[in-house]
């Protein structure tokens, strides 16, 4: 079919992967990005990308185990077929990136080297120094530039997405965007739209995310009717370095390469850390989780660091919460592999992490939740039906969601080095689905009357003018600060309903004050004030989706932790009571799963009373199980759970026999 045109919004890994594969399939692409695509937030990914590989296979690893680690890590909150498909594609994706010229680190023989990451016992993570995201992004950027020269991709950099264009049947027919320099507003008609707009960390003020990760585009899609899934699942990365403008990530690869997290046993011991003897150091992750050690999944590591600092009062410093991340014992060759992040620490903290342990604390890092999208399960393989128009397709026909912007792959907690995989995978897999979707269309964007596009442009122009004219007494930057404070305080690592309620009232107050903001820049040329103020509205909307979702979910799952609804761990000294407690624990766990193992789905309402509902999760391939990660003292839970499963299976067999013989 001639003149197929697709708009891709966002030029990070997912958007570029989608654009490149669409171009390969002969589809013309308009690529819209707020920044030159090389500056997308994917550059901040450091440690690596996961897949099964020859070296792990030798140790018994396979795609199924990667899949199992991913859903176990995500507390079983993700639909399993897309995750299985992603893990199956892993090795092929790394091969492709290798062919595209990514400078992966090498073994002596010239093969790709791998390191270990959190939430797995295998070394699955291929890496390029400690700047893997940057390297992967550049490889895709280069391929897209090649297609640009071929004429199949047109790039619109420094263009901001304002909203989708829906026809009278609710079908997406393109988007409207604004040139951030000249401020022109333009309609981009298209047969399908791919949203690859990334995460929304700026809702929390400072996070590990880039300045563009406002959630602005996601908010605009949500307002246009795209459902939002699992908003309350926000990953807080265990190791970051606080700064005045952002919290800088210290990659999990630091621990993957042997870095150790500790605090002095004596609270606020003011000796030079390198002079504190081993016996006076508390390696709390290693002591509590002997099996995974420093490489427990992120939600657990973050909670443990929080507990050490807040409850145990063992923070390294008295007036600031932090723990040591120690790489000083590692050899120079390992430091070399981590150079990218060690330089960041050295530059911003003026301390050499090769000789002094780093001081780190958790920071908001990734949104597991996001815009809702669909999939079609292949009943034979358990994975996806290749090319099904349902894959990555949102509830708005013609709008597809990929990358961090979607809610699909990471459940309640993402494993480190799985994000680069999910971004590239979802971008790759969406292209044939879109191609097939376009074939089902009876009318194409080019057939539609231009009056429809003119109207959309006019609508957005009017909105921009109104925003620029706002001349109240409130400062949008102040509102953003207050939003970040309340969200970080109440909707991150440890959550209480009373505090979340306070945050919801605060969001009400801020939304009200937003109506009285004043833009300091009234001009119509490169007005960054306008862009920020517009995104603030979206941040307020999504903050409500996140906070309300967190309030409604009365359980503990992955990154969402509410002590008031935690199941008490077995702690009795005598075995009989311990077993009783574990039995009770397993029963409560099952009960909680029956009630809460569901995706939160939120639908926009203009009066801010957004509709919340819960969607069954497809756990057809791996049944959910308690997530202990070999915690010391939790072995009894594992034992009782196994017994329970065996009994359950035996009971089911008896029942089946009874039915058969009847």
């Amino acid at each position, binding site marked *: 079919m001639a003149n197929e045109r697709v708009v891709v919004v966002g030029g990070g890994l997912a958007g570029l992967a989608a654009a490149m594969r669409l171009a*390969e399939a002969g589809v013309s692409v308009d690529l819209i990005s707020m920044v030159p695509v090389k*500056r997308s937030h994917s550059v901040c990914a450091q440690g690596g990308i996961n897949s099964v590989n020859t070296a792990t296979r030798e140790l018994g690893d396979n795609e199924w185990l990667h899949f199992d680690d991913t859903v176990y890590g995500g507390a079983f909150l993700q639909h399993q077929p897309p995750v299985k498909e992603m893990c199956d594609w892993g090795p092929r994706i790394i091969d492709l990136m290798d*062919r595209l010229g990514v400078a992966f680190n*090498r073994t002596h023989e010239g093969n790709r080297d791998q390191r270990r990451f959190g939430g797995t016992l295998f070394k699955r993570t291929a890496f390029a120094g400690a700047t893997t995201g940057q390297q992967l992004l550049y490889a895709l950027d280069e391929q897209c530039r090649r297609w640009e020269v071929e004429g199949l991709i047109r790039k619109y950099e420094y263009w901001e997405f304002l909203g989708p264009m829906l026809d009278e049947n609710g079908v997406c027919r393109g988007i409207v965007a604004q040139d951030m*320099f000249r401020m022109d507003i333009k309609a981009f008609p298209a047969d399908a739209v791919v949203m690859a707009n990334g995460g929304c960390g700026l809702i929390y003020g400072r996070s590990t995310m880039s*300045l563009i990760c406002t959630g602005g585009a996601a908010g605009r899609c949500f307002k246009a009717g795209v459902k939002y899934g699992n908003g309350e699942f926000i990953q807080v990365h265990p190791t970051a370095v606080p700064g005045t403008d952002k919290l800088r990530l210290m990659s999990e690869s630091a621990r993957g390469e042997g870095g150790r997290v500790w605090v002095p046993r004596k609270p606020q011991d003011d000796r030079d850390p390198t002079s504190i003897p081993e016996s006076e150091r508390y390696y709390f992750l290693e002591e509590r989780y002997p099996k995974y050690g420093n490489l427990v999944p992120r939600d657990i590591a973050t909670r443990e660091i929080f507990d050490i600092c807040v409850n145990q009062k063992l923070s390294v410093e008295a007036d600031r919460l932090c723990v040591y991340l120690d790489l000083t014992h590692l050899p120079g060759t390992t430091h070399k592999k981590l150079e990218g992040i060690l330089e960041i620490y050295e530059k911003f903290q003026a301390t050499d992490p090769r000789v002094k342990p780093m001081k780190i604390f958790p920071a908001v890092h990734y949104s597991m939740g996001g815009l809702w999208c669909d999939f079609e399960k292949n009943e034979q393989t358990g994975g996806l039906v290749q090319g099904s128009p349902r894959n990555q397709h949102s509830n708005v026909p013609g709008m597809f969601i990929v990358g961090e912007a979607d809610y699909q792959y990471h459940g309640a907690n993402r494993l480190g080095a799985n994000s680069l995989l999910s971004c590239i995978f979802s971008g790759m897999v969406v292209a044939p689905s879109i191609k097939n979707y376009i074939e089902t269309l009876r009318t194409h964007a080019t057939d539609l009357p231009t009056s429809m596009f003119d109207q959309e442009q006019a609508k957005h122009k009017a909105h921009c003018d109104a925003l620029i004219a706002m001349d109240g007494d409130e400062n949008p930057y102040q509102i953003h600060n207050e939003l970040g404070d309340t969200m970080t305080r109440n909707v991150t690592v440890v959550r209480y309903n009373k505090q979340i309620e306070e945050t919801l009232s605060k969001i009400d107050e801020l939304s009200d004050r937003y109506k009285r903001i004043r833009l300091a820049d009234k001009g119509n040329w490169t007005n960054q004030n306008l862009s920020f103020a517009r995104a603030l509205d979206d941040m307020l909307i999504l903050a409500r989706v996140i906070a309300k979702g967190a309030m409604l979910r009365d359980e503990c799952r992955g990154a969402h932790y509410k002590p008031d609804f935690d199941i008490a761990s077995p702690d009795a000294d005598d075995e009989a009571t311990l077993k009783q407690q574990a039995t009770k624990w397993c029963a409560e766990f099952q009960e909680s799963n029956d009630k809460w193992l569901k995706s939160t789905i939120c639908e926009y309402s203009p009066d801010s009373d957004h509709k919340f509902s819960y969607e069954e999760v497809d756990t057809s391939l791996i049944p959910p199980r308690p997530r202990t990660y070999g915690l010391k003292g939790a072995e009894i839970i594992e034992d009782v759970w196994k017994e329970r499963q065996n009994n359950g299976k035996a009971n089911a067999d008896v029942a089946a026999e009874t039915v058969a013989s009847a």
Partner: protein
Amino acid sequence: MSRKINVAIKRQYDQSSGSQWEKFSVDYEPGMNMTTVLQRIAAQPVTSEGKDSTPVAYDACCLEEVCGACSMLINGKVRQACSALVDNLLEDKPDQITLEPMSKFPVVRDLVVDRSFMYNALKKVRAWVPVDGYFDRGAGPKMSPHEQEDMYPLTTCMTCGCCVEACPQINERSNFIGPQAISQGVLFNEHPVGKFEEDERMEALAGAGGIADCGNAQNCVKVCPKNIPLTRSIAKAGKMATKHAFKRFFGS
């Protein structure tokens, strides 16, 4: 009273207007960098004289020196604003910090410049691996750890523009493609599959605006925030150009 930092910023409203300096005073915060200073000005755009102004337009994104967005002249030196720590700047020059847009690119507004010239140069040197397609065709070529170590620094180029700014050969009268594009050309000429397009790449690298325009001032390598061995790349490109010229002269 809290300690203030004085910042003078060279401002320009749009592409056709002239520039003028404007001064701001910002509350000092321990550990702050220049992007924080710009964020504080955006939030309270009031000049040192107490006059209402507009937020200063600037480019910034990752804030950890991997995206390349926030290049500007800080105290006259080209660098990333995010890694420019105020404490260090004040040590050198306690009275005032100056910010200016890079001078080798068209100013869009204030500190924002248009660097599309650099992306176009990447097109000219065909900075990509010419793969057959994106389907499963097995692993990439093997590579020794040594080769990877040579290649890796070149792949960290953020297209930030510092080398272009520092290069005396880049000016209104020249069409020199600049150190970054040469280095990227070399990167792909040395890649086991990239080198299949070496001849096409050399058309740009050895042609007008190519390697012959380098004046060997070696400023580029001094300002590169990623310490990319740009002069080594330039030397290699020179050799490649000689080889290419021979090949063209005698036929391959």
